[in-house]
């Protein structure tokens, strides 16, 4: 039996390690695009995912924004949900007891408007059994200046991350905004401040206008743009950032099929998150995982880690 045949038959390894966490595979849900999994558990076994990233938790419960909250755009969508969530108590009492039973890492996405709020939330939530990591949402465009300031100023990122790092008992993963001049500078600041990894990108601030009603479509006027439309921007940022820092990068933005995930891995992402695609294809995540595995087998690549960042190396033949 030739080695080629052996290769063909062995199952490729999809396992990756990220900030000390072992993931079955590098594919997870993106915050706010998967609820806390209960809806999608009706379509596939959540334990197939590399990790579950839930909706943002804010210092106090939030009812969310008045309608209209979403609008379709070419190959994308705008959202201004307004971080609707039950707050820390609601999360700890109603949500965590259920999701901690899952056999996969659970990341909590944390969003706030001040340094102190970020620190307090990290302190509180990182002590809870079942919280595997904290993803710091430094960039929610839909909750007014407060949230927005954090996303784009290097100093604020450094300050917030190092303060949270001190109190956070689990891996701390700042999620960076793309609405910035120099995302590499933000990533460097996060790394220097002790981040265990960075996630990017969050949504780009956008708008749509209803020409019949002569006003913005969204009740919030502006919203966050996501979906395949933003993939080229996200991919470029992941490519730049992963070349500039030494902590892992979680690639996010417009991933809708396994080929997209491969692009992000080749650009240097250690793992990827699938967001908007869950909405238009509830089985997007298992399809990405299966597609990735089949492609690796076809190409006779034994370990998914072999392709991480290869597009950044000199051209191969």
């Amino acid at each position: 039996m030739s080695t080629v045949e052996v290769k063909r038959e062995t199952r490729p390894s999809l396992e990756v390690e990220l900030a000390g966490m072992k993931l079955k595979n590098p594919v997870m849900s993106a915050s706010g695009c998967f609820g806390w999994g209960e809806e999608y558990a009706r379509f596939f076994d959540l334990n197939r995912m590399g990790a579950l990233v839930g909706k943002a938790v804010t210092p106090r419960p939030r009812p969310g924004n008045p309608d209209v909250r979403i609008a379709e755009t070419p190959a994308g969508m705008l959202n201004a949900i307004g971080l609707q969530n039950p707050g820390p108590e609601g999360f700890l009492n109603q949500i965590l007891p259920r999701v901690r039973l899952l056999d996969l890492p659970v990341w909590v996405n944390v969003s706030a408007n001040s340094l102190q709020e970020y620190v307090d939330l990290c302190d509180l939530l990182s002590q809870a059994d079942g919280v595997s990591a904290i993803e710091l949402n430094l960039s929610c465009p839909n909750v007014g200046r407060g949230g927005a300031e954090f996303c784009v100023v290097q100093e604020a990122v450094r300050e917030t991350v190092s303060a949270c790092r001190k109190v956070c008992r689990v891996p701390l993963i700042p999620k960076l905004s793309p609405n910035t001049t120099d995302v590499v500078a933000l990533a460097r600041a996060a790394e220097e401040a002790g981040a265990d990894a960075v996630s990017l990108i969050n949504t780009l601030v956008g708008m749509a206008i209803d020409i019949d009603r002569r006003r913005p479509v969204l009740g919030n006027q502006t919203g966050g743009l996501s979906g395949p439309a933003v993939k080229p921007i996200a991919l470029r940022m992941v490519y730049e950032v992963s070349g500039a820092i030494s902590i892992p990068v979680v690639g996010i933005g417009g991933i809708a099929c396994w080929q997209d995930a491969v692009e992000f891995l080749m650009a240097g992402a250690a793992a990827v998150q699938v967001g908007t695609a869950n909405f238009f294809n509830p089985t997007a995540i298992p399809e990405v995982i299966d597609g990735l595995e089949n492609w690796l087998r076809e190409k006779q690549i034994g370990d998914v880690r072999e392709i991480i960042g290869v597009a950044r190396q000199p051209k191969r033949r």
Partner: protein
Amino acid sequence: MSESIPIYRAEVLDHVEVAPEHFVMTLDAPEIAREARPGQFVMVRSLGTWDPLLPRAFSVYHADAEGGCIDIMYRQVGRGTGRLRLNEPGVHVQLWGPLGKPFQLADVEQVVLVGGGVGVPPIVFYAEYLDRLLAPVKVVALIGASTETFLVGIDHLQRANATVRVATDDGTAGHHGYVTQLLPEYLEDTPTAVYACGPMPMLAAVARITEAQGVPAELALEAPMACGVGACLGCTVPRREGGYARVCTDGPVFRPEEIAW
């Protein structure tokens, strides 16, 4: 919430024009055909493109449990339905459902169904469902459209033994005006429940009338949707008690008093 939701790359079995701009699409979907109840909807996405990106919600218009297929009826108005139109028989679309809460039959002697525009499909499905009940109730169907040629499903309603009355905005058929103007006369004496689906202004009117008369009613709402399953929080409407309800999972069928109109 815990049982699984059927999802397919479903084959288009039939696709016909039933009125100007109005089409009926038949989809191969055995589980959905078995499980679907009147008022529920499915999400449909055309494949091979990201524009339009999002699936569209369509009420179940017919469910043939034996044949293992369902019908949806849509009006071609925009990008989603424009793309949907191109899916000839043999092509596959992504389909999941049935979704949302169905109409709940109240213990009454008469049921009045009110349908406007593309709100007619679930009304037809409900009429046929009521007609098959062991203890049939008197069914009146009030159907509104902008103009006569856009009146759809009337024949199905009549075959389902419903008393049909129509209204058109331009007076080309039936009552000249809003369909809701026909409603009050049916709320006099007999114990009646009202079920409605159509544009928001029509539903608001039905809510006003039925609440004023203390008549039980259920209204099937529409809202822009991304996921259809409760995850995106994009389809919310304000609750009278405060906070927001998701049309896709808390609805689409609501009682008038639940919503802050």
